[in-house]
């Protein structure tokens, strides 16, 4: 197990190194410079700026300097936002994004599992059809449309929750719903498919022959066996949501990281692009390892063997 984990960690580091390398050089291929008002700047000014940011050095040297800095936890300085260090920029904004993403994921997955199970149990009835229609709507309606509708009806007309901004928990409710409907629909669909299969299996019939109640069968036998395909989906989805959603954060004026990321790309803010990409990648490789471990917890057949092979 230990040997296995060490091996996995080595591959994770390797993956991150490759991501950093590829992103760095791709980024340098983007047209333009970080300076928004370049037309008004004199060549001397540009040269001074380039020297200040190290952009006059050859690209391979810039790359090595960046890697060296990253090893010390220094992600460079953002070109926008009054020269804040990228690590500060990220750490001050990731909290809101992560909280929102996690809440949306929990909301979506829990409700999705319930709806999906419900559909599978009542397969080919109007309940199933209703659940399917709901999940198609959830999947196909863009979340910004839903966000605006929620703001208008729930916040403005009913006044139940604040319309935007970031304060206590009540501020998170509407964006959580808007962001969570995607994973909700996806989860419901996965669980329904998985559970329909499982409910037709022999061990479910044996569970019925034991005299277990319908709920007992679904809860103790069917659910766990239907979760495997979902676990594959949930991990990366969670990382994606936690590292910020530009649209939702914008609509609800949430000081998250999603907006920064998009802005940094349009303004060629190289260190911020790199920083957010690395954060996302790191989250992803960790989550993939966790997913593999969770697999083993759910399904003993794929449990990692103890002897390290």
């Amino acid at each position, binding site marked *: 197990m230990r040997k296995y984990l060490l091996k996995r960690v080595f591959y994770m580091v390797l993956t991150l190194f490759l991501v950093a390398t590829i992103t760095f050089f791709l980024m340098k291929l983007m047209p333009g410079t970080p300076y928004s008002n370049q037309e008004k700047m004199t060549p001397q000014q540009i040269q001074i700026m380039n020297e200040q940011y190290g952009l006059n050095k050859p690209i391979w040297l810039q790359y090595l300097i960046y890697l060296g800095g990253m090893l010390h936890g220094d992600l460079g300085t953002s070109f926008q936002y009054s020269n804040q260090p990228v690590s500060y920029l990220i750490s001050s904004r990731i909290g809101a994004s992560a909280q929102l993403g996690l809440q949306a994921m929990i909301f979506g997955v829990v409700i999705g599992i319930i709806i999906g199970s419900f559909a599978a149990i009542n397969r080919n009835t109007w309940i199933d059809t209703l659940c399917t229609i709901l999940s198609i709507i959830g999947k196909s309606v863009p979340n910004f449309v839903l966000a605006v509708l929620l703001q208008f009806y729930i916040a403005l007309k009913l006044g139940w929750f604040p319309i935007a901004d970031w304060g206590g928990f009540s501020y998170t409710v509407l964006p959580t719903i808007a962001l969570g409907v995607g994973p909700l629909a996806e989860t419901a669909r996965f669980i329904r498919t998985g559970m329909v299969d499982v409910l037709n*299996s*022999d*061990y479910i*019939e*044996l*569970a*019925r*022959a*034991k*005299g*277990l*109640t319908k709920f*007992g069968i679904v809860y*103790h*036998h069917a659910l*766990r*066996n239907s979760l495997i395909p979902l676990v594959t989906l949930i991990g990366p989805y969670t990382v994606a949501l936690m590292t910020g959603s530009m649209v939702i954060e914008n609509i609800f004026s949430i000081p998250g990281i999603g907006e920064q990321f998009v802005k940094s790309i349009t303004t060629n803010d190289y260190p911020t692009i790199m920083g957010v990409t690395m954060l996302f990648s790191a989250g992803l490789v960790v989550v993939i390892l966790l997913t593999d471990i969770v697999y083993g917890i*759910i*399904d*003993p*057949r794929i449990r990692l063997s103890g002897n390290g092979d």
Partner: protein
Amino acid sequence: MAERILDVKNLEINFHTYAGDVKAIRDVSFHLDKGETLAIVGESGSGKSVTTKSLMGLLANNAEVVGGSVMYHGQDILKKSEKEMQNIRGKDIAMIFQDPMTSLDPTMKIGQQIAEPLMKHKKMEKKKAWAQALDILKLVGIVDPEKRINEYPHQFSGGMRQRIVIAIALVCYPEILIADEPTTALDVTIQAQILDLMKELQSKIETSIIFITHDLGVVAGMANRVAVMYAGKIVEYGTVDEIFYNPQHPYTWGLLNSMPTLSSTLLEAIPGTPPDLLDPPKGDAFAARSTYAMKIDVEQEPPFFKVSDTHYAATWLLHPDAPKVTPPTEIIRRQKLFAEMSVNKSVKA
């Protein structure tokens, strides 16, 4: 006379399909006495499994019981609600399934799978139920049960898994055990072990068994009585000796004839395929495949003719006016043995 614990009368079950109603079970009657083993024999699709699933209330959604009754302790099982059936299933009537490789939950420890019926029916706490699960694991012959009770199904071989399935079925000491082809999916050597185990447990637990199989070889060693099913009907029933050595229905002849014996050089197959039960034939359902079919066989359904007090067969060949026919040589050989057996019996008496 033995106590009758299950009495199935005129059972009729239809399956609703897009093509129409499939008449899967057509007027089936049989009974089960306390402590005996009744074998229900027939080829695939003859309705064996459907019959027993109706006893458990486990019929598929598109199946409908059209008529008949299943009396158990003076009550008609077919009229019970799902909730009431949940209290009977696994406690009074339990079931062993065909394929041990798929009938255990892959993500649950076998100890819990065995303990579940106890926790449900005897309201036992988990600890006590597991202790009892351990006992039954020993009883079904699992080596090192203290360790293996914590393992998952994939860590067991097919034969061992079937022992666990049997343990689950027997853990509440059911009155009736339905075994639906319990050895079909197993190696021949393992089959014998499982059958021996079932016989041993039957005497220990005092359960009555309904044993479903298409394998007559298995029946001989297991059953007290045999019912032969064809196309959703029982065509002949009697004690195991009567069915094996004095069969009367051409279908039973065909079945026995297709079974290898020490002297057989060529195995006879029954020609043709079973009839389409969407539109069952009018007379004897087997007539189309029978070389002994008469005109009346395609016109009118044969009633049960009595052969002995325990032996009945539904074939027109037993009608007093029917012409004498010569059964296959293997059947004649068997009937000779049967005649000798009854002579010996009467001499002893």
